[in-house]
């Protein structure tokens, strides 16, 4: 296992100064996520425009470096995407962390893929996978307009 892989500079940096932190103005969707294992909490705020695309996306929350960085990077990558595109990106991300070691998605450019790959170190730390995926599950839930809190002990 390799700590340097896990705590890459970009992760530490996003963890320390997460982007798009706070409530975005005029949000029309939001959802909460909770990881009881470590107490990580995330609250995602989302403004979908009339074309059902992500106009703005922000989050609030507390958690470990991995979970904050993952949420922060997510808010950067998903802006402008549709629901289906977002879901595809999430699946590509989950697949990268659980199975393959690359991101397979047509909805991200190479730079974006590289950014997302900064989370690939989690692969070697199975107990930390949920830290990296919580914000994504919460985002999808927000887009679906679900009311319940996402709970990593209840989802897989």
């Amino acid at each position: 296992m390799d700590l340097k892989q896990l705590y890459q500079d970009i992760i530490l940096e996003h963890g320390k100064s997460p982007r798009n932190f706070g409530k975005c103005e005029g949000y029309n969707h939001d959802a909460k996520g909770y990881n009881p294992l470590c107490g990580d909490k995330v609250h995602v705020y989302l403004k979908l425009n009339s074309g059902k695309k992500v106009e703005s996306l922000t989050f609030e929350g507390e958690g470990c470096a991995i979970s904050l960085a993952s949420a922060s990077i997510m808010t950067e990558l998903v802006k402008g995407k549709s629901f289906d595109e977002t879901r595809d990106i999430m699946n590509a991300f989950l697949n990268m962390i659980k199975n393959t070691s690359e991101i397979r998605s047509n909805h991200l450019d190479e730079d974006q893929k590289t950014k997302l790959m900064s989370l690939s170190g989690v692969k070697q730390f199975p107990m930390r996978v949920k830290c990296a995926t919580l914000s994504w599950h919460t985002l999808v839930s927000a887009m679906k307009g679900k009311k319940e809190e996402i709970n990593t002990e209840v989802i897989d």
Partner: protein
Amino acid sequence: MNIENIKSQFPIFSKKINGKPLVYLDSSNSSQKPMCVINKLNDFYKNEFSNIGRSIHSLAVNATNKFEETRESIKNFINANFKEEIVFTKNATEAINLVATTFGQQNIKEGDEIIITELEHHSNYVPWHFLRETRGAIIKFAPINEDGDVIIDELKKLITLKTKIIAVTHLSNVTGTIVPIKEIVEIAHKKNVPVLVDGCQAVPHIKVDVTDLDCDFYAFSAHKVYGPTGVGILYAKKKWLEKLPPYIGGGAMISEVKKDKIIYAKLPEKYEAGTMPTAEVITFNESIKFMESIGIDNLMKHEKEIKNYALEKLNKINSVKIIGNPKNKAGVIAFTIKGIHPHDIATILDEDGVAIRAGHHCCQIFHEKMNLTATARASIGVYNNKDDIDMLCKAIENCRKIFDLK
């Protein structure tokens, strides 16, 4: 694997009992353990021990993974559909109590009926009796015949609109009766009645496929399947585990705890409160591998051969009477000797190194039905061979001599 030489894999058989080689015919009570199982337990405690679950250090991650591997193995071994359908308890008794308590809490009210059979072990009667005491349920006993078979037509007649559950053994720990579970489940499901199967004696000795049986609940214990003590297994269809309330409350079975509300964890953790028998569950995986390395068909063939040999030889001994003669009989042989009480038999056999059990074997209802207070019981495990049966018969002859029987 050569089943004839399998005894050598069980270290206990190099021991002497009262100066005689051990002839162990008490496997229905608990089985002996093969070296691979003992070594695994030893190894885990020596080199890998950690609690599972919430810690994220390497030892804990390793233990958690191995723990879940056992769950996966059990799932495959009994052909369940989902890993989350396998819940670890401390023994089969707790597994049955878990169902009786949680199912009862949700579904049993005064006057509701529970059907069990006259073959049941106390562990598949007392938990239902609790519902009689606390919720006013009615327990109906499906009768058995002289052979020790459940009379299916009679069981059928007992089902009414008030029947809430049927609880039945898969294999009797007295007569060795193999109960036609699939048929009973079909009958019950036609009337929307769920079925709990006590599989304690079945899992070590016959092929068990819970998907094929289609039962709702299936309980058994690791210690009878060549595994360590302290581990029971409950299989339950996911829909039940999702619907029923939790059983034991505490650490690990929760997701979120506040002063005014508690959210329970997902399956199977919802039913696994507190520190599990971590090392023992992890070790049980070796028992399953041991069973699989023999192959359940080979094991059944072997035990059948020994059973038939035993029946043949015992039947030839004057004044020995085999109790029950079921259509399908596994290697569990209860018997009496006219003129010698079972407890005297057990004591005398033990002097010859032959370990059997005497008493009611936690089946007083059965014994009362058969008008017996006690029986002697020889039960066969994978390690028994014809020599063991010869020793048994010789020891019985010794009993007869001491008691001066003709």
